[in-house]
């Protein structure tokens, strides 16, 4: 019998149908994947199951009883816990305080006081957590501050929190988005152990490989509906991709058939990315070339982008020997000057750095290009021109829905990303920084962005591709540089390199190689 049963769930927001007909069966003690493109309704369905959203209609059965979930509180009472895509941890507090947050154990005699005034009694919680950690192989230092923990450890804290409240059903929303390949491996072993002990696990993701590796069965969402559920052992990634987008996809690959120009778009010599690092970063980039930057998060990727985006600010505190963009010394340049000279950038975090979520597409399309002559008439903005440009941009990158006046937050993640992409290439930049260009984006959008990147490179655009997805870097790059400890550890030719070699260079295992290019 199914432990979770959803029947005919539907939910709409205004004109936008989020869930049309969702049916789901999950057996106890299994790991079930929830697959679908961004905006296919999988997140909404999971939020409904967690009580965050009330459906307009449909039935939810848990353990054979029909339930109405009005709030996460109801869901928790039934043993349903959710691990959110973005961690919900308080950075300033330590692990144990974060775990007991919401059900702080206090002395019963103090129950009449407001929570903030009661002294915490953490002894019992500590011994229970010790037991849980041993039982499930989830080691964490309970007294460490969250801000001192690695991403993988934070994830373990989140899972411990769910176990601490006796969750039997775990909903995991894109749990691997922030993990390194090694951490993903460890994480999956832990998940499997949990399932073996009788926990039921729902994993929401769009990463086919991972689903194939960990799940027992997979339910596919498309356009707000559940299309089908397949057993993992009976399927493969190609079939899943086809089910997900409704058609077969050609894979995009750099065929290394374009001759690069000799003209340098970017020249960096001895750039200090971190004051304490022993080495400095040296690299260059030609026009019509894609340079992939591989590396574990935190090895200088953000600093490199900062230095290129905001040279005058960054170089106030860091040294550099040469920093040239299109043959001009840009060491004292401001952001606006860089942008106007032809620097485009797809930021790592589109919500934080790339968009005005409460504004419409047109208002977002001018961001960064507010000084473009074609958009301006003296102090005024020529909104009609911006509208036309937005329309063109949305068409060229297939942004849907093609509504210029729709608030950006109403677009799916993939479409938001495509809009940023369209904006950054609209004014024909000379150099494009693509920083995690496909993070949290569905396959259709990934495909489109990859295809466009190759097209633009053929037209002479220089592209700095920084990504944690090795597949992406391997598929697109003409050259690959590995960033390790704030310097280029090794460079490879795009055609002659594989994941293992890259992985070794990323962890600093191999010494030597060329420094710089």
């Amino acid at each position, binding site marked *: 019998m199914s432990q979770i049963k959803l029947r005919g769930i*539907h939910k*709409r927001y205004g004109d936008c*149908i989020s869930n*049309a007909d969702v049916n789901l069966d999950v057996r106890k003690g299994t790991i079930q994947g929830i697959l679908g493109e961004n905006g296919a309704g999988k997140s909404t369905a999971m939020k409904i199951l967690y009580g965050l959203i009330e459906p*307009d*209609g449909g039935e939810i059965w848990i353990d054979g009883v029909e339930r109405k979930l009005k709030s996460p509180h109801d869901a928790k009472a039934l043993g349903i816990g959710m691990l959110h895509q973005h961690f919900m941890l308080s950075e300033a507090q330590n692990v144990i305080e974060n775990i007991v947050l919401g059900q702080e154990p206090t002395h019963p005699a103090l129950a009449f006081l407001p929570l903030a005034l009661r002294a915490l009694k953490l002894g019992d919680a500590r011994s229970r957590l010790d037991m849980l950690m041993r039982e499930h192989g989830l080691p964490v230092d309970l007294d460490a501050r969250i801000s001192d923990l690695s991403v993988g450890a934070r994830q373990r804290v989140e899972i411990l929190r769910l176990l601490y409240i006796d969750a039997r059903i775990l909903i995991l929303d894109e749990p691997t988005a922030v993990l390194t390949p090694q951490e993903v491996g460890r994480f999956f072993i832990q998940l499997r152990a949990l399932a073996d002990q009788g926990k039921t696990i729902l994993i929401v993701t769009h990463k086919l490989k991972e689903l194939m590796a960990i799940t027992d069965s997979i339910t596919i969402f498309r356009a707000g509906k559940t299309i089908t559920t397949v057993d993992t052992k009976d399927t493969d990634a190609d079939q899943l991709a086809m089910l997900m987008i409704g058609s077969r996809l050609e894979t995009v690959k750099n065929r290394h058939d374009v001759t690069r120009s000799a003209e340098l778009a970017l020249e960096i010599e001895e750039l200090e990315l971190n004051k304490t690092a022993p080495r400095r970063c040296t690299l260059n980039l030609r026009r019509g070339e894609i340079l992939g930057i591989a590396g574990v998060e935190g090895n200088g990727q953000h600093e490199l982008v900062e230095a290129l*985006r*905001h040279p005058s600010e960054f170089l106030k505190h860091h040294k550099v020997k040469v920093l040239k963009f299109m043959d001009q010394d840009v060491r004292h340049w*401001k*952001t*606006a*000057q*860089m*942008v*106007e000279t032809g620097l485009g*950038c797809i*930021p790592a975090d589109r919500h*934080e*750095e*790339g*968009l*005005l*979520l*409460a*504004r419409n597409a047109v*208002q977002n399309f*001018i*961001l*960064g290009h*507010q*000084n473009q002559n074609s958009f*301006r008439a003296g*102090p*005024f*903005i020529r*909104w009609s021109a911006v509208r036309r440009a937005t329309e063109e941009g949305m068409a060229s990158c297939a942004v849907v829905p093609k509504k210029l006046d729709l608030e950006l937050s109403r677009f799916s993640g993939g479409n938001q990303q495509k809009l940023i992409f369209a904006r950054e290439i609209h004014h024909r930049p000379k150099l494009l920084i693509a920083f995690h260009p496909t993070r949290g984006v569905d396959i259709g959008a990934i495909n489109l962005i990859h295809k466009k990147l190759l097209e633009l490179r053929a037209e002479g655009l220089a592209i700095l591709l920084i990504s944690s997805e090795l597949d992406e870097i391997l598929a697109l790059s003409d050259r690959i540089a590995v960033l390790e400890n704030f310097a280029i550890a090794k460079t490879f030719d795009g055609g002659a390199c594989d994941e293992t070699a890259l992985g070794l260079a990323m962890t600093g295992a191999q010494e030597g190689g060329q420094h710089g290019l």
Partner: protein
Amino acid sequence: MAFEKNLRSLTRPLSALILGAFVSAILIRIVGESPWKVAEIFYNGAMGSAYDLGLSLFYTVPLILTGLAVSVGLRARLFNIGVEGQLTVAALAAALAGIWGPQDVILNRVLGFAAALLGGFLWGAILGYLKARRQAHEVVAGIMLNFIAYGITSWLALNFFKNPDSQNPETIPLIDAVRIPAWSYFQSAPIGWHVLLAPLAAMLLWGFYRWTEAGWAMEAVGENPKAAREAGLSIAQKQFWALAMGGMIAGIVGFIEVYGNSGKFIVGFSPAYGFMGIAVALVGRLHPFGIILSAALFGAIHKGSLDLDFETEWITRDFAQILQAVLILFMSCATLVPAGIQNRWEGLKRRLYGQRP
């Protein structure tokens, strides 16, 4: 679509107002008056005659301007609590310009207006500089600048320009000719063409945000500073201008007070216009035209409550202030109050259109 959106942004403050009125009614009944009677007094007090309407307007106009001033800050995600100080400095500047300036009517008024704008701008610019370049918190700096503005203007007014014939702490008056004559329609209420400055400012501001790059950029900085930085906008610069511009708008209050009302600078002339502006801006949803509506409401409530003391036996001045505060409190919480009402509205709409998926 747009109409429905506007309607919805109105339903919230209105339902809050009704709820506030309900609570007030209970309070009124407790002290032993009839809420009906009080409502009538309120209405008559606010707009029962041309004179009463004039006085409601008299309180409304400065509130529109301070509301706009605060909104300019809030749109750039800055809490401009220094509006009170800005309008005080502006009023003194206007009065001094009026006293010293050429006694030609037009020239004197132009000079007074310019001085008010400059005074408000200057005081806002100091706050802007402290925030943008010295990383001072704008609330702390704003409060301190209010004190300083108060102290400096009082000291200047009372030590150098004091009216020797008056017991009041005020400067010597402007000559009568340069003061703006009141329209006879409002009987003797001090309402002349100067009140048009407020809606004019609202309109200009509306256009500023809608059509200019500077307006768009100031809002972008407020909405997502990181994205704005990536777009090459200088956050510090926009913050500076948001506070300085707010000061300039607040400065118009100083001009109106000096040229349109008292004809001189009176120490402490403002019954906290600057602080009420914060509530006005929030209730008006930071939209220039919303601010006009909310200021009108606040102005009417202020004037209406004035008459309660006069017209009733049990409602004293202090109680009238409680009622006023209750209404403002409810309206300021407009975002919290009617979640239920919002849901009903959605439900009603669905029933009307029969759109069930």
